[in-house]
């Protein structure tokens, strides 16, 4: 995990439109959309030098009739680089969230490792989440994968927790926090992470 991890809170911080990552460098960022924000953000990332490494985390928490759209266009221009993206969305009310992630691996970018995962959790009956992964791979010696799911809170988990005296609200809180945890785990320990965690816990309490 890198020391120079950056956190972008959409609506407050400005996400760079385009980032190039040079040989041996690494880019580590987490973008966060908190409730109360509708947005359409896109990020373009190019890995232009061998050994470049990119870790992108994304978290979007939406409520009411918010519209959130995030897209990442990531290009492996040279070989022996790695990229790893993890997006998690919690969508309540009648909000609509969309994540689109495109990964391009050019013909000569051998030994590329590129991973992308996008998962969303629908809290409301009329909430919608859409995720469109797109992989364009022109090299043959690569390791690439993507995964996407859209789900709801598990009722068996809820009943198990409630049978131990955990209120339904607290059960839902634990479920949502554990759902977003893998994105938070990518952020190095420190004050920034702690204050983000507080923001997220407050947002989740309101969403559920």
């Amino acid at each position, binding site marked *: 995990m890198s020391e120079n991890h950056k956190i972008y809170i959409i609506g407050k911080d400005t996400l760079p439109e385009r980032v190039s990552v040079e040989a041996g460098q690494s880019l580590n960022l987490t973008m966060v959309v908190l409730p109360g924000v509708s947005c359409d953000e896109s990020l373009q990332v190019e890995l232009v030098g061998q050994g470049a490494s990119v870790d992108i985390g994304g978290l979007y928490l939406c409520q009411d009739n918010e519209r959130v759209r995030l897209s990442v266009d990531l290009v492996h221009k040279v070989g022996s680089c790695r990229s790893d993206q993890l997006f998690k969305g919690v969508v309540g009310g009648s909000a609509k969230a969309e994540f689109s992630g495109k990964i391009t691996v050019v013909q000569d970018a051998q030994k590329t490792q590129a991973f992308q995962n996008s998962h969303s959790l629908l809290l409301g009956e009329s909430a919608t989440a859409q995720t469109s992964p797109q992989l364009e791979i022109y090299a043959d010696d690569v390791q690439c994968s993507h995964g996407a799911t859209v789900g709801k809170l598990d009722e068996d988990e809820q009943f198990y927790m409630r049978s131990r*005296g955990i*209120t339904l609200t607290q059960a839902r809180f634990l479920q949502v926090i554990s759902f977003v945890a893998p994105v938070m785990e990518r952020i190095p320990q420190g004050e920034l992470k702690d204050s983000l965690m507080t923001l997220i816990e407050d947002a989740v309490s309101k969403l559920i």
Partner: protein
Amino acid sequence: MNDILLKIEDLHASVGDKEILKGINLEIRQGEIHAVMGPNGAGKSTLSAVLAGKPQFQVTSGKITFMGEDLLAMSPEQRSWAGIFLSFQYPVEIPGVSITNFMKTAVNCRREAQGLEPMKAGEFLKLMNEKMNFVKMKTEFAKRDVNVGFSGGEKKRNEIFQMAMLDPVLSILDETDSGLDVDALRIVASGVNALHTPQKASIVITHYQRLLEYIVPDVVHILKDGKIIKTAGRELVAQIEEKGYESFSNE
């Protein structure tokens, strides 16, 4: 006679359109251990789920009174606060939630409902350690996600650990013996026995005689096709073992 803890009167319950419990009557007093035995599909697990308040089951008629209160009017968490505990046949895995966090939330939700302050961290950890030792669970488990990657025996031990933490008045053990080897069965049974007091009661739901060699019941019921068709003393266990459930029919 001791006070009645639980009274079930003409209980009917369904899942979807299918009626599973077809008129259950049962009375449990303080200090008693009741065994509910019966073939697969008789409604044993439904009975335990209905007692704990699982939302997927609909009670279509009948009444359940627990310590004088209308149990059916309570949410699952309120039933837990009132002193009901269900040890699950298939304990649920909760990825991302550690046993410590899970139990802390459970203990403090109850304390809040009782108008108490959250338990102090030191006091809570001491209680956790004590109860984990009690069921011979390694303390490393405290950090692990609830039931994730646990063996069958570890899951059941975790159930009894939670029971020890919550100190219920009425424990319902749903097929606690399934998937256990003899050693795990002994640990689980001795845990249950050690938690039993003259003020409490247990319902042991089981298929086989095996667990009842370790947890000795006062009253034994046979549940078949959604009804209790026979109630007798512990001698009934041997009769079932000898003759099978087939030989018992609605009396």
